[in-house]
Structures are given as C-alpha cells and as structure tokens.
C-alpha cells in the first residue's frame, strides 16, 4: 500500500454565481514533489490555489492534508497547519520593513519548531541586505521574494506558488527555479501555477493541465505537450470555450 500523499484534492468544486470555476478537480501531491498547475486564463488554476489555501470555501469535494480534511478551514489556521502560499501579484505589508514583514509570519504563522529563523529566511532569499528597507521601496522582483519569504517563515510543508516567475528576467528565473527545487529537495511539496513552460520544465516533476475548471491531463510536462487534448485547449482554446 502506497503512503498517503501530503495533499489530496478530491472532486473539488467552486461556483461564482452561475459560473463553475472548479468542476470536480482531483489530484494529489507527494512530499518533496513539485507539481505544476497549467492551463489557459480562466481555467481555474488560481481558484484552485485559493480554495486549498482557505481564501475560498469549496462548494463541493474536499481537501485532505496529511490525511486530514482541511477544506473550508480559515487561511490563518492553514498557515499554522503547514500550508502557505505566494500571490500572483505580491502582497507585502508595504509600510513595514522587510524584516517586519517576515517577523509577522514567523511570530503568528510559525507552525513548528522546524520553521527557519527570520535571519535564515532573509539570507536564503538574498534579502538580508534589504532587511531595514520598507517593502514599498523594493522592486517587483524583490517584492516577490519577500512574498516567498513571508510564506517560508511559517515553515510550510506544502507551498502554493502562484505565477512567481512572471516579470522576472532570465537570470532571476534561473535563480528562482533553483530556489524552488532546493525547497523540494528538503522535503517540501510545491504546487506551482505558471505559464512559462521553460520555468515549469526546470522546476516541476509532474503537471496537471486544467481547462474550464477541470483537470484534463496529469503527467510529465514533456508528455503534456504531445497530448492532443492539451494541444487543442492551448492552441484552439478560445474556439472551444477554454
């Protein structure tokens, strides 16, 4: 019998009025695995992350973390339960310093004694020199790192990463990919929403392709690009309601 995956999403459904953003999505992530979540705009990727991180309650289905149901739990409780995330547009506390941003998460969201110290997180992400600066004075690449630092300071075992590569230059992309792989090598599971295929290829072990709120492919990225349904969605998605 295979061990229970760290995260299991079962027939997840989410509606906004008459629009079904998620329509029975199911997948799992193992410890130390990096799972990519790809699909056209509006396919439900960010909604999926929002449900798993507690920002939205699911209308149907369930989210199991380490075998325990966490669907519909409040985000601050999930943060303290080893699940954290970054945002598509980074959301630091702008008037606070970089250190204070991370300190808040380390203070309130620290889920275990294994969570790294503030200085360790800042050093690891190359933000130590910026510690005393206000977050609003950082460039967007540093704000993305700060978003990641805030999440890492809680010591998560599952990290949801929402389009962190967007807007980074090629050198920053490589560095970010290496950082995410290093986290996975330490046993952290990552769910990475991304559009940049090169970045996904470098980071992910497996991808889920979504369209219209459903998963249509689960496998390696190299196989996904040869899948006829995936190709149809990406190349002819507009004509087919993607």
């Amino acid at each position, binding site marked *: 019998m295979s061990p229970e995956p760290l995260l299991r999403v079962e027939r997840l459904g989410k509606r906004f009025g008459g629009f079904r953003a998620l329509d029975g999505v199911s997948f799992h992530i193992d410890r130390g695995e990096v799972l990519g979540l790809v699909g056209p705009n509006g396919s439900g990727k960010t909604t999926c992350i929002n449900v798993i*991180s*507690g*920002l939205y309650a699911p209308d149907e289905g369930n989210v199991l973390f380490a075998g325990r149901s966490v669907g519909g739990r*409040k*985000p*601050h409780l999930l*943060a*303290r339960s080893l699940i*954290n*995330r970054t*945002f598509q547009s980074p*959301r*630091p*506390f*702008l*008037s*606070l*310093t970089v250190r*204070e941003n991370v*300190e*808040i*998460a380390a*203070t*309130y*969201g*620290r*889920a275990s004694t294994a969570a790294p110290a503030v200085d360790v997180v800042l050093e690891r992400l190359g933000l130590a020199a910026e510690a005393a600066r206000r977050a609003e004075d950082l460039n967007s690449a540093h704000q993305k790192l700060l*978003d990641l630092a*805030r*999440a890492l*300071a*809680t010591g998560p075992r599952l990290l949801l990463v929402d389009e962190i590569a967007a807007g980074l230059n090629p050198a920053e992309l490589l560095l970010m990919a290496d950082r995410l792989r290093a986290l996975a090598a330490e046993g952290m599971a990552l769910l990475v929403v991304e559009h940049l295929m090169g970045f996904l290829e470098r980071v992910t072990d497996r991808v889920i392709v979504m369209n219209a709120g459903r998963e249509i492919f689960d496998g390696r990225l190299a196989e996904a690009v040869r899948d006829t349904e995936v190709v149809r969605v990406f190349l002819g998605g507009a004509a087919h309601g993607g």
Partner: protein
Amino acid sequence: MRRGVGEYAAVALPLLAALALAPLVYSNELLLFNFIMFLILAQGLNAIYGFTGYLPFGYVGFFGAGAYGFALAVMHLDASPLLAMACAGVAALALGVVLTPLLRLSGAYFAIANLAAAQAVYQVISNPALQDITKGPYGVTLSSVFAPALSYGVALGILAATLALVAWLRNARLGLALQAIREDPVSAAMAGVAVVRGRTIAWLLSALIAGLAGGVFAWHISVFYPETAFDLSFSIFAIVFTLFGGAATQLGPILGVLLLYGLYNVIGITVPQYFQLIYGVLIVLLVLFLPDGLASLATRRGFRVP
C-alpha cells in the same frame, strides 16, 4: 517601528505634567478638560483607525454610551463615581460587542453603518418613552457626584493609560499584527494572523477608551442632554485631529489636538465668524498636501515618529 519606552515617555510625561499643573495657572478648567477629553478620543480613534484602517464616523456612539452608562449607574444604582466609571466602560464595550458584525463591512460602508448605529443609540436614549430610565430628551443631572477636581484627575489617568496603550500597540506583537491587517488582511491571514480576532480586539479597545472618555465627561460636567453626549462633532473632531497629526503614532494625534483644538478655541474667541472658513481651508490643505498627517513630514525624511 519598535522603539524604547523612553521615547514614548518623553512625549507623554511632559504632556501629562503640563495638563496636571495647568489648572494652577489657568482658570478655564473646562477648556483644559476638553483638551484632555479630545486627546483621549483621538488616541482611542487612533487605536481602531491607525492600526486597522477602519474609520468609525459613529465613534461618538461609544462616547455617548459611556456617558449614559455613568449616568444610569449613578441615578439608578446610586453607584460611586469610580464604580459608575466602570459601568461607563462596560456600556461602551457592550455596544462594541453588539456592533462587531459591522467589521464585516469596509470603507465607506463601515463608516456609514457605524454612523447609523450611533444615531440609533441616540434615538433610543432620547426617546421620551424611556424618560423613567434615561430621562429621555430632558437630560440628566448628576449633582450628587459633581467633583471637578477629582474627575479632572481621573481624566488625566485615563489619558495616561490610553497613551500607554498606543505606545504598547506600536511595540507589541499585536500592534504589528494589526498593522499587517490594515495593510493587507489576506496577506496577514497567510502570515498566520487571526484577522477577525485582531480587528475585534482593536475595535473593543477603541470602544472602551471612548466609553471611559464619555463617563468622565458625564462626571465632570454633571448636567447634559442626549444631543450633548451624542454630538456628531465629537466624532468629526476626533477624526480630524487624528488625521491632521498622523494616525498609527502616539505623537500624531497629540499634535492634532493641541494645534487644531487650540486653533479652534483661538478662532472661536477672536474671529468666530470665520471659524468654518478657516477650519475648512485647513482640512482641504491637509488632504491635498499632507494626507498622512504632520507626522509624515518626519517619516518622509527617514525619521521615526513615536
């Protein structure tokens, strides 16, 4: 952000000492008392607006609840002034608890709903049908407990406690969490901050401060009417003073009260006909050029304001 106790004490202690000694050299004690009351109210508003971003236009509701909590305890329970002060705090806290669901709203919706709630409490208190309990629109007289020197001292004590509370919020974990909530509640939640609980604590602390201010106001003036205790200008002044000085600091609201309420009284005595004009122009200038208040003149230059 985090500063030593000394810097806050350097602001608070001279202010408290000056207000304690002022009655010895200045005979208009009621004016001095009003300064203390607005200093308390501005810091109380600071606790909710400065640290969570909620702007309560109906803040006077807590003040009025405190004033009537004090009055009802004296009139119906024959309570001592200090016990009645406790009742004032409890009354405002109770109203705060009842109005906690308003925190689900934000921005203008919260401000309007809060204002409506304060008006509703005023209408209930001033209802002639409740004359046997609240004296309705005819006002209350509390001459049995009139003790201006003692109530002045208690007001100073409340101000000291309020200043200490704001200094603590600026330094404590809770204050940092509240500022995170103000900046971005979603991100704060993902940092592990219990957003609803943090807002509720700030809301109730703010209500308690206004309630105690209302209680000591009732004690000090001893005769008042519902429209006095629920006068909307208490809210407006507390908001303007706080914004003018700079919210989320201890010093900002103090500067706001000393400068603007001082100016208010100077204008009121010398050229009262121009009062609205001068005050209006000042507020327009503030919004245009100093939206973050006087304190931002220092913070923009890299200085930290206690």
